[in-house]
């Protein structure tokens, strides 16, 4: 387990030695800021709701961009061989990389904490949904990071890893918008596997164990899939 910490440290710091981290964070803040605040004053409500509604869509593009290099780069340069012949387990490697990606998402979200602070000066804020929103955002980020990690483990090409990751995450996000095509019987099932549906529940401030379970099980599935891919490469 201590080994996972070193892998985490290396991964997390390597995000910040290249400009990629700053570019991703800037783009994220710019896009969310623009979409959120362009309609914020029209609504005339001191709430973060629109911000959180945006997040699943933006995350499904940004998170795969964060995770795409985690395995693909190593496979491409060949450092994957070094990584696997060091005295570490698959578990150490996967957890180290996963936590690094989730921490990066946290670092990316951190500046947006100023939004609720300033909005609360404009009117009465309901802090429940804000808190729920941030907790939900981290859960959503974890699930997407695990899926992105899985996509990255499958290919040595970062672009392919990115596109695969986006496709999977975006599909999960928009699933519940497409339900009107489906017969009523299975709507419930597809709604349940849609990320957006669960995220909306949490970001309303409703803490339901089912939503937690949903994100945790997707994280687990992604990480377990990664382990299977790594085993298959041996």
């Amino acid at each position, binding site marked *: 387990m201590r080994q996972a910490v070193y892998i985490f440290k*290396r991964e997390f710091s390597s995000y910040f030695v290249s400009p990629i981290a700053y570019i991703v964070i800037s783009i994220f803040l710019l896009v969310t800021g623009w979409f959120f605040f362009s309609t914020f004053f029209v609504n005339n409500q001191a709430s973060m709701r629109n911000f959180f509604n945006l997040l699943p869509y933006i995350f499904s593009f940004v998170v795969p961009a964060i995770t795409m290099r985690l395995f693909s780069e190593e496979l491409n340069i060949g450092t994957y*061989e070094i990584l696997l012949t060091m005295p570490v387990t698959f578990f150490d490697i996967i957890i180290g990389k996963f936590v690094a990606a989730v921490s990066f998402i946290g670092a990316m979200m951190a500046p947006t904490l100023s939004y609720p602070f300033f909005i609360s000066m404009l009117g009465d804020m309901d802090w429940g949904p804000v808190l729920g929103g941030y907790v939900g955002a981290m859960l959503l980020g974890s699930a997407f990071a695990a899926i992105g990690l899985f996509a990255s483990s499958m290919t040595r090409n970062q672009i392919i890893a990115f596109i695969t990751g986006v496709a999977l995450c975006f599909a999960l996000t928009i699933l519940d918008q497409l339900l009107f095509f489906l017969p009523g019987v299975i709507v419930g099932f597809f709604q349940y596997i849609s990320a957006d549906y669960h995220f909306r529940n949490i970001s309303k401030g409703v803490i339901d164990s089912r939503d937690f379970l949903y994100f945790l099980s997707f994280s687990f599935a992604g990480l377990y899939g990664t382990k299977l891919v790594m085993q298959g490469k041996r």
Partner: protein
Amino acid sequence: MIRAENLTKYYDNLCAVDHINLDIKKGEIVGFLGPNGAGKTTTMRMLTGFLEPTSGSIHVKEYDIEQNSLEIKRLLGYLPESAPLYHEMLVYDYLNYVADVGKLERDKKSARISQVADLCGIKEVMHKPVGELSKGYKQRVGLAHAMMNDPEILILDEPTSGLDPNQIVEIRDIIKEIGKEKTILLSTHILSEAEATCDRVIIINQGKIVADADMESLKQSVRGEYIINIALKNASFEEAERELKPADWITGIKQMDEDKAMLRIRVTCRASRDMREELYGMIKNRDWILLEFHQEERSLEKIFMELTKEN
């Protein structure tokens, strides 16, 4: 130290390594030779636990690779082919990371890093990003990585490939230096390298071991056998064969090319002393004109070529 039995690896339907047995003893420097694609890298990757053998077993010391892969990884230092490294890290940070992952104690860490850096001659590049280093330095950083946690066994995959002659000599010296106390398995397709550094060579071709002998006995087997290349004018191959065949120290005569102007032949000799004088005497007896006369030793290169020729 390392014992592999019936080691086999298939890539889909392609058989890369075919039932090979290895037994490497403590303190040996073993050269792993073979043409490209013979299965050297695949074998090494299986020994390090990076690849899983299709069948067969690997034991390092008393550990089995399936049950105790973590313990084995701790005993091994591995330098993969072309030394892949994290380009964005500083050399010092990289070695520090390797030391941490290898569970080196905090108080011994910096001493060990500088010791290894000293041995590999990378002191002056410690604060440069790995990506900016030349090939030779990268190879040394890779070597430093392999040695960082003081492993008992080093597995080096083509440690000198792509280096200039000076760097090759330097890396070889480092390997010899380490080899005084460690067990080393190194792969190469350069014979002189194996000759210069190894106690024992294993030659592998198309996934099978075709020779496994210590350097001395391999050299012994070629001693006393040499080849003399001759070019003659006014002679035919039949004539030459008739003239030279009776000598009992000539074991073979071969015509090299069909050239009307001159006859090129290759005479294989087996004798404990120099037979050039005698051969020259035999040629002088005839009215042939001698154009070329050149002796070559039947070197390891030849053995290697014979053993690894496609059949």
